């Protein structure tokens, strides 16, 4: 059981790091957003793994909340990106720089 938990957690940590690196290195707003979703799902995996090990349902309850929150975030996030694209015709975050100081 202990070994199994570590495998899950390692995978989750790798996914989380890939997500963080994606946010930091990619410049396309949609790809950044995708990487953020990867971070959330890495956390979900860790929660489910812990929940299974402890035999406690709370972790899995939180996972359901995270999935619904992520869906709401997609709706809002894509709407914001589309509104921006209509005005600027770009989703490259390096070109989105009206504010200074």
């Amino acid at each position: 059981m202990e070994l199994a938990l570590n495998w899950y957690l390692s995978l989750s940590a790798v996914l989380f790091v890939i997500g963080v690196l994606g946010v930091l290195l990619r410049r396309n707003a949609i790809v950044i957003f995708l990487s953020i979703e990867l971070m959330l799902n890495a956390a979900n995996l860790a929660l489910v793994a812990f929940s299974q090990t402890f035999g406690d349902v709370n972790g899995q309850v939180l996972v359901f909340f995270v999935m619904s929150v992520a869906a709401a975030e997609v709706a809002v996030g894509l709407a914001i990106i589309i509104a921006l694209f209509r005005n600027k015709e770009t989703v490259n975050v390096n070109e989105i720089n009206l504010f200074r100081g």
Partner: protein
Amino acid sequence: MYDFLLPDMGATAPILLVALIGVVLVVVDSFSNDSASIPWLSGAVLVAAITIELARVGVTDSAFMGHVMSGGFASFVNVVILLGALGSVILSVPYLSRTGHNFGEVHALILIATAGMMVLANAGSLITLFVGLETMSICLYVLTGLVRDNERANESALKYFLLGAFSTGFFLYGIALLYGATGTMMLSDMPAALVETGRTGFFAGGVALLLIGFFFKVSAVPFHMWTPDVYQGAPTTLAGFMSTASKTAAFAALILVLGRILPLDDVGLDTRHVLAIVAAITMVVGNVLALAQRNIKRMLAYSSIAHAGYILTGLAAGALGYAGALYYLLAYTVMNIGAFGVMSVLEWDGKQGAEQTIDSLAGIGSRKPLLGVAMGVFMFALSGFPPLAGFFGKYFVFAAAVDAGLTWLALIGVLASVVSAYYYLRVLVAFWMKKPEDAHVSVQSAAFDVPLFSKVVLVACVAALIALGIVPGFITEAAGAFFVTPEATALLP
């Protein structure tokens, strides 16, 4: 069969009421688009919720098997959040009508965000903490990008959204690790679980990631980069809402979490040092960068970063500083709602004030004395001038830091607030010492009047700041009681 739910719903009535009316407003709005009754309804429900919470400050309770707190500390924080929301709603009606964006859904989003903030501030478990934080954040992303056809508003919304979601990722991973370290989601069970398991790597990592999420939400340095861009591009009254109510909620939740983690000696020491260092950097960077700003909304954003640093100073002091931090949050909410309220009246560039410099406000004091006097009170309060509430807020958090042996931190705080007087008073120089003729020609001819609703809120804020300054003991005794009574030790062991 579900009888046990009724008392729980009674205990969380203000949250449920605000959320319910928020949903009702969406329905009302879809049948009668942008109906004039919507702001009245949202104001009424906020007043009702404040009344209920005020009646319950004396009793501490919890609901839904401990997942949500109610009464006592929770009620106090809810009152502050609801006051911030009420002030923003009243100021938003004339402001958004003038800019042509007084949509019904704005008020629905404000109410749902407020409900999320209350859930966050009353969280009894990591689950409610997350759900409250996200309910609040997602509504705020939409409110930031309200002016859809403006590039700056789009940019603000995108930056807020991407960085906010990024920090949510850290926050959630922190929750997962804390859950793994303690085996429980309930905040109240954590101390016992920690005594059993000791301090593991999971626990340290979880606390660190959770703190990153919180630092982002309260815009502490080095997680502050989004704040100026977001406040500058967002509609002014809604920027006021974000800078006060959401910050209050995040700080209250931080107190709830720290209250359980810090008392364990070996754990507390490190976390407390991290808080103290972040507080020091936040105060210095916020105040120094504010000096260089020419746009008032941007300056207010950096000032709100600096104020987050002062409040963190109180939290770094541990249990001694919590009551001071609560008083500070109340005072800060009143003065910042007021300052953003004044700016919402003085906006005529058609870009949510994103391009207005301080010079464009030359001579406003003699043209509109009410605005001049009100802004004077808010600026003196923000810089911490003695008879006003801002001074006592700073005094309480710095005194707590000295008592906790963090004299160096209090010293940095005092020096930083001396620096802050420069940029706050510069606004007053523009308001009163410069002549209207000094301003740009387009500004001199700009016609504007002060709507009645804005006047009411501004006068109320001025009165509250003076009253809180003259009798601060009334609030601090109420706030201090949460952290010494037996019920409170049950709440915050």
